[in-house]
């Protein structure tokens, strides 16, 4: 059994003597007898050796031996080795929230750099120190919109990640906010319909680029119209796509949120991930979450601290901008190291390679009879319509060694044959050709 308590019997005895009690049990006397644990049926402890073996077996019971074309907001991107070298420094990962700046300049500076980079890639003025994930970040953005203009209705496009929409709907079950989901025109976001729905009761407008089916749009005109009506525009973005795609800032979004997993985080079966948030300057003081600022110390030296804390729960309690009292600091660290490594040119090039591979994949699949690629501008993900239901097709493809994509029917009942396929920079042209050959075989 592994023990992480260093006390020898002598230590324990001396400490009890100093306290003035005869046994450890005496220290628990405040717990009344009738409240003592009725059961505590847990297995015996195991050695580290035994434990590691069990986990190796468990990990083997997951299959990861296929070539993946599965995305849906979470992508199989390449992660340079140096990212983990930094994030596995235990001075970073065994520290806590940098409340004591003199003892936390490492974490604080890294977050300050992270804020700068997120502002830089989104083209907006400010970013916070990160939120839990993309979906919860979207809720926070929506709550900011509602607080900003005191209206209660929020328009959310059906092209926004359905998992994010599910979270937002759950969060509001006991608050007076009306969420109106706006249908797609096939797989495209219906900008005209959205524009026609902007009225004086609307607090916020939420769209995603590229949308869940991979379609790229320019929302600048829509956001300008929203702004004229006092409506807050929220754009859900895919950070790596911003290497080439028009930014939330250029589109005049007020708030941009996104899932940061693509910035150097492993897929890890759903987390930990990274909630990105950047805002136009007029929303700075309404932004939830930690924020790091630059200042000087007593000797005039540059120093970094948590700032604008008057927004936060430990001071404002029930009047805070959010209940959040942490950030995904270690994930944000991975993102900042990843972005530093690929740098200005690599960020653009990685995005471009993603798009190239996706286009290559489209072309390879286009030749296959019975399968239709839905037309429209895309980044690294696109939608294909299969001759039959997607579920069976996917099982057969998996047997052939490919995770072939995400069936839209999971979230869109009228799209039983739609398959959302993604190709990142990790997919080689050879893999894509083999994939297309397998698709052809399965469909024939």
């Amino acid at each position, binding site marked *: *059994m592994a023990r992480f308590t260093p006390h020898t019997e002598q230590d324990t005895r001396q400490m009890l003597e100093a306290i003035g009690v005869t046994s*450890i049990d005496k220290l*628990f006397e*405040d717990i009344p007898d009738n409240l003592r644990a009725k059961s505590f049926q847990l297995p015996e402890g195991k050695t580290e050796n035994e434990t590691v073996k069990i986990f190796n077996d468990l990990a083997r019971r997951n299959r990861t031996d296929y070539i993946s074309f599965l995305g849906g907001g979470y992508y199989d991107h390449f992660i340079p080795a140096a990212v983990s070298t930094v994030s596995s420094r235990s001075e970073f990962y065994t520290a806590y929230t940098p409340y004591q700046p003199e003892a936390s300049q490492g974490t604080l500076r890294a977050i300050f750099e992270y804020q700068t980079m997120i502002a830089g890639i989104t083209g907006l003025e400010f970013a916070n120190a990160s939120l839990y994930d993309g979906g919860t970040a979207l809720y926070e953005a929506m709550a900011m919109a509602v607080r900003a203009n005191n209206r209660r209705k929020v328009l959310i496009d059906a092209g926004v990640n359905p998992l994010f929409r599910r979270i937002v709907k*759950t969060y509001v079950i006991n608050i007076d906010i009306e969420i109106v989901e706006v249908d797609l025109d096939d797989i495209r976001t219906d900008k005209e319909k959205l524009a026609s729905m902007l009225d004086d009761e609307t607090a916020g407008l939420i769209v995603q680029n590229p949308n869940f089916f991979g379609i790229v749009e320019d929302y600048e005109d829509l956001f300008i119209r929203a702004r004229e009506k006092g409506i807050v525009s929220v754009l859900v973005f895919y950070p790596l796509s911003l290497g080439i795609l*028009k930014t939330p800032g250029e589109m005049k979004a007020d708030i941009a949120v996104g899932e940061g997993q693509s910035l150097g985080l492993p897929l890890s079966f759903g987390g930990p991930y990274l909630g990105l948030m950047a805002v136009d300057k007029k929303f700075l003081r309404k932004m939830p979450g930690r924020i790091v600022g*630059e200042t000087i110390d007593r000797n005039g030296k540059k120093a970094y601290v948590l700032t604008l804390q008057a927004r936060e729960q430990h001071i404002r309690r029930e009047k805070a901008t959010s209940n959040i009292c942490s950030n995904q600091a270690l994930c944000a660290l991975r993102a900042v190291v990843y972005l530093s490594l690929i740098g200005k040119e690599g960020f653009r090039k990685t995005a471009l390679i993603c798009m190239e591979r996706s286009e290559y994949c489209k072309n390879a699949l286009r030749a296959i009879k019975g399968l239709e690629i839905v037309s429209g501008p895309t980044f690294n993900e696109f939608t294909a319509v299969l001759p039959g239901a997607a579920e069976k097709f996917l099982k057969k493809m998996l047997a052939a060694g490919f995770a072939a994509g995400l069936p839209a029917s999971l979230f869109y009942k009228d799209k039983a044959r739609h398959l959302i396929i993604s190709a990142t920079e990790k997919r080689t042209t050879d893999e894509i050709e083999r994939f297309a050959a397998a698709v052809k075989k399965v469909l024939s």
Partner: protein
Amino acid sequence: MKLIFEKSVPGRIGVDVGATDEDALKLINSRFLRRIDTMLPEVSELDVIRHYIKLSQLNFSVDTHFYPLGSCTMKYNPKANEAVSGLPGFADLHPFMSYIDEDSVQGSLEIIYRLSSLLAEITGMKGVTTQPYAGAHGELTGILLMEAYHKSRGNKKKYVIVPDEAHGTNPASAAMGGYSVKSIPVDRDGGMDVDLFRKAMSDEVAGIMLTLPNTLGMFHRRICDIVEIARKYDALLYNDGANLNAILGKTRPGDIGFDIVHMNLHKTFSTPHGGGGPGAGVVAVSEKLTEFLPTPVIGRKKKGNYYLDFNLKNSIGCMASFFGNFAILVRAYAYIMMLGKEGLVDVSEKAVLNANYIRVKLKQYYDLPYDHTCMHECVFSAKRQVKKSGVHAIDIAKALIERGIHPPTIYFPLVVDEALMVEPTETESKETIDQFVEAMIEIANLAESDPDRIKNAPNNTPVSRPDETRAARELKLTCQQ
């Protein structure tokens, strides 16, 4: 030290991402393309490594310093947990595979299922959701569960009761979940005042959020009365499990009468704090609330296969995109597996032993507003030092930093003036704790003999005390290149 942007040299790259075909851009209308600079740096891989490794060295951390930060349970994070959580079978697994082919994700589903069962037994509860990403996120989950429960009984309630010693997230979560907050003061013994609580109760109260042991490190001796009163009004009892580290195997929230508890896996179950996250705020509930849990829950078929169950008719919905911070769940499961039943009981016993040892060793030097056996943490006050020489809790904290010790939590809980909240955890040895005690005594003595030394500390850190007012007034939140 320069920021990474200040080390940027045009043309330098950290990694070669490969060749591109610029013609591909022609496939997309130029109005969809980015025109502005990213402001990202141009640095070599060595630049990046040296920069961030040097930054890491500016931090205090559990692996380098004693870190008795009250209420945060900064225990040692066993390295085996790190190793197993990063296995490629876990790290490379796309969460959507669970929607497409359950057979190919059985290892991960088994971990979530088994960890949930263990945590249910540890807390004496019936149902568990691993979705919440952090303690505060668990609180919000609990609040929404309360709402769903009352709604199912045809009730619409208005208030949540929170004692004033509670962590600020409690009232913030209750408000975020749509409730008004009633705050109740603590009594002389440091527990929520039961008489005032009784007066505040009505049919309109949806629930009561209690930290147990509370933030003063006390086990509320009248908890049975509180449970009884709450039951009369069909109000649910929420246990903020931030302090679960004190009571493993001794008592269980479910046995006490709580309906909901959140556990901070990054506290009690030793997953690393990551500089502020990621954590995990798993929520466990009593039988009557299981039907409201977020979906999917992980079920087990008769043949032993695990599956995603979306068929909870009364589910509140979804708190996370998938199953919560899975890699954190793996670490916590490994920790519980290694310690087992006896090991976990030992955790609480030694955590409480260490805290009480500090309490008696320091109480003649610092005020102890609630002088009674504590659980896993004890709360001192610097009032004596303030009165005598103007040395505040924050000065004591800075003097500890100068001595290579991370300070306790200061100015919390709010019910104690000049609070110094010390939580040593069970993983620290008597020698380390004795060194801390000596440092605190030295500081108490210096506060009388040479208070300026304390007020000017620290002098040996990468920066001295930053001007926080200036930071908030002259906002500089990004690097202006």
